[in-house]
């Protein structure tokens, strides 16, 4: 999705992207359960509005870094379903030729500098890309996705400080899903609002409903405009919730079922769908989106199944240039 920050995309467009991410995640979970794909699987079901709204406020040339829960961010920044699914199959046709896998999706063609398997690992890299944009005197911005747990890592503050010190066009986008892996925020953070942590470096922070894709878009668009105008970094804290476990196989004993159910009622897709219905969007339009997305995903899975494995003799390719 590459829509200029000053043109708010229609809600139908945003809904379509969220639905695509949701269905990719659901299908990946099924494929994982069936042992067709393997390794690790960190789904972003329930968090689709954060990445969709945020990436809609970026241009294709803008940079992102993201986390091991990065399928959604990767799709939202514009990588094809085919390239993502094939990567999870470990195939040569995947966006990283099967060398990265679920946690490490990267696609430079759309400005995705990479997802990281290390909590907070992508934050300083995005900050460096923002420094690069400033040095090159272009209007690019860098946006880094991370969870609230990452704000307890040292490199988060190091990066925030440097971004503020040098007024870099860097947006610190915190997806606060209330749990750092399996531990509730109340047991891991000394503050209630991660956005407040910007105070440490005089970086303004704003909290937004992370399950309202339009609110996320508008907030991010403001931060982007501010960054492009040379006014420096911002923290956006998007309040959201992952409706599935931290990773495939998570027992989820650490959270009450009622909590999950209450968030399910605020599922970002439901929120968007209600808005569409309220404004009179016809059911056929939504149904057609669903059908098109299903077709796209099934074609991508078929493509991945038929794709070749990486060649054994190329196992050492790509270590050095």
């Amino acid at each position, binding site marked *: 999705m590459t829509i200029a920050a000053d043109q708010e995309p229609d809600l139908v467009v945003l809904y379509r992207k969220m639905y695509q991410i949701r269905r990719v995640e659901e299908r990946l979970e099924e494929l994982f359960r069936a042992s067709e794909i393997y390794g690790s699987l960190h789904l972003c079901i329930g968090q689709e509005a954060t990445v969709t709204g945020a990436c809609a406020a970026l241009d294709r040339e803008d940079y992102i870094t993201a986390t091991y829960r990065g399928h959604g961010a990767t799709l939202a920044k514009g990588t094809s379903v085919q390239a993502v699914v094939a990567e999870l199959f470990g195939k040569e046709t995947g966006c990283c030729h099967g060398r990265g896998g679920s946690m490490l999706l990267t696609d430079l063609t759309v400005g995705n500098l990479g997802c990281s398997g290390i909590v907070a690992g992508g934050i300083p*890299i995005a*900050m460096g890309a923002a420094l690069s944009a400033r040095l090159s005197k272009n209007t690019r911005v860098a946006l880094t996705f991370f969870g609230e747990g990452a704000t307890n890592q040292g490199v988060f503050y190091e990066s925030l400080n440097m971004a503020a010190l040098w007024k870099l066009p860097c947006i610190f986008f915190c997806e606060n899903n209330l749990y750092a892996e399996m531990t509730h925020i109340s047991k891991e953070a000394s503050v209630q609002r991660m956005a407040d942590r910007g105070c440490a470096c005089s970086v303004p922070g704003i909290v937004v409903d992370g399950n309202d894709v339009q609110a996320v878009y508008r907030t991010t668009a403001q931060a982007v405009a501010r960054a492009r105008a040379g006014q420096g970094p911002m923290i956006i804290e998007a309040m959201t919730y992952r409706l599935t476990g931290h990773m495939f196989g998570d027992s989820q004993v650490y959270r009450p079922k009622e909590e999950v159910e209450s968030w399910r009622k605020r599922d970002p897709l439901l929120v968007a769908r209600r808005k569409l219905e309220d404004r009179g969007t016809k059911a056929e339009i939504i149904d057609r989106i669903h059908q098109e997305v299903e077709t796209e995903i099934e074609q991508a899975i078929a493509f991945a199944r038929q794709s070749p494995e990486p060649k054994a003799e190329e196992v050492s390719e790509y270590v050095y240039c």
Partner: protein
Amino acid sequence: MSTASQPLTEGSERILTYAQALNEALREEMARDQSVVLLGEDIGEYGGIFTVTRGLLGEFGRERVFDTPISEGAIVGSAIGLALTGYRPVVEIMFVDFVFVASDQLFNHAAKARYISGGQRTVPLVVRTQQGSGGGKGAQHSQCLEALFCHLPGWKVVAPSNAADAKGLLKSAIRDGNPIAFLEHKALYFQKWPVPTGNSTIPIGKARVVREGRDVTLIAYSKAVQLAASAAEQLAEEGVMAEVIDLRTLKPLDLHTILESVAKTKRVVLIHEAHRFVGLGAELAATIQEKAFHYLKGPVQRIAALDVPIPFNRTLEKIVLPSTGAIISAVHSSLGR
């Protein structure tokens, strides 16, 4: 730093310190390539604690030379971000001991970025740092950590032993395109050597035979080359002709030069200032016995730092570090004397 106070002709030699030679390499590469930028602690206005970056801020300005906060993780991370988006950052980590602070970015990110992206990303990043004993600097400012970098696929590792190599290798490192750990030695910065003028680079991955010999091969790098050379000097007085190899690059290793020498002398002593256990000597010894076992007339010997943290006390520190005497003893033992 006024290394060129008087005009010199191309290809001639001057006497420069190791620090001056490094400074010259940085200046030349920054002038040659606008994408080369420097980041590090106290490297701008102060000129670097070992004076390596002196004058570069004035010459190239604040858009090329960045004094950073003391934030090693973010320094290296931001350099990766720069490298992924068209720049060639040269980072100075003030002491190698501080790489542990930046280790996630160095080892989980820079090292693997290219591979795990299926070749999409390249990281033309040079991490300049200095290591080794400076006499009484203690356990957190005297380590030699080359084995860390050598162990992880993705890094190339360079450790120059003199000013001319420092300059030529740094120029090659900046042009290379891969993450390079450029390991300087703090005790060498103010020693002097002849250094050629002009655009001379030294290839990465090529060792140098410092002194030819027939009886034993002494393999060293960085400051330990001086120990090896001095041992060879003393051995010559008793008629033992030692060949001395300066590895220059630790990864990739120049196996050709090493094995050619082993085939000739049939005896090997490895010398480094890093700890002995799982040090580079272990890898070299294993490789030499794998590739040249039938040439060897005796076990490959290792002279390295003892496996204790570097003590502050002068006498104890000396006991921990490798010495010329220890090399000579190892050669004697190797020759069955």
